[in-house]
């Protein structure tokens, strides 16, 4: 089965600092999703990447998918306390009829100190 490894598992930064979260797959990724979760709540969709080398940005968050489609990074510029939460990467489980079934990494807990 597809396995996604996220690093680091947790991250504590000072407000204003930049940070990067990585998501690495043992297999080629057909669709890579980034979500943010506040403790005990649902997932907020951030971005989805499909093509090798693809990069998307929204406000201060940028996500990239490498050319080999096995690694993605999420970069936050000038972090704010509102960025705090759990960041999850998810990927389509390979298979022609399994579109939309996602397997997830274990999550990265981000704390931003004001």
């Amino acid at each position: 089965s597809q396995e996604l490894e996220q690093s680091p598992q947790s991250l504590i930064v000072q407000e204003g600092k930049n940070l990067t979260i990585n998501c690495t797959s043992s297999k080629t990724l057909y669709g890579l999703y980034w979500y943010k979760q506040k403790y005990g709540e649902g997932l907020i969709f951030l971005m989805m990447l499909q093509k090798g080398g693809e990069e998307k940005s929204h406000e201060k968050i940028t996500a990239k998918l490498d050319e080999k489609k096995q690694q993605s990074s999420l970069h936050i510029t000038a972090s704010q306390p509102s960025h705090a939460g759990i960041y999850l990467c998810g990927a389509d489980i390979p298979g022609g009829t399994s579109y939309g079934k996602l397997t997830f990494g274990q999550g990265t807990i981000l704390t931003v100190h004001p």
Partner: protein
Amino acid sequence: SAVISQKPSRDICQRGTSLTIQCQVDSQVTMMFWYRQQPGQSLTLIATANQGSEATYESGFVIDKFPISRPNLTFSTLTVSNMSPEDSSIYLCSVAGTGNYYEQYFGPGTRLTVT
């Protein structure tokens, strides 16, 4: 994007009872899924809710324990049957196939505690 609501948002249930969770979407969607997030864990896919037919379950999940209905393109229910404390989790529905076809959105989750 899609606006997804779940009911109840949380519940505390006794061992041996059943709870039905509802998922409502504000627009028709192609795909609906149910996930479980156990305490301190990431999400695990339970099943795909198929409109008008039986759900498709992932390995380790069975219909008798997690019966699912999807009577139309905007609504689905998940029942957690004969509950035990190990069923204490957050249950989330997700949808895909609206707007940008490949984007997948999640509901706010139902936090279930079984005592």
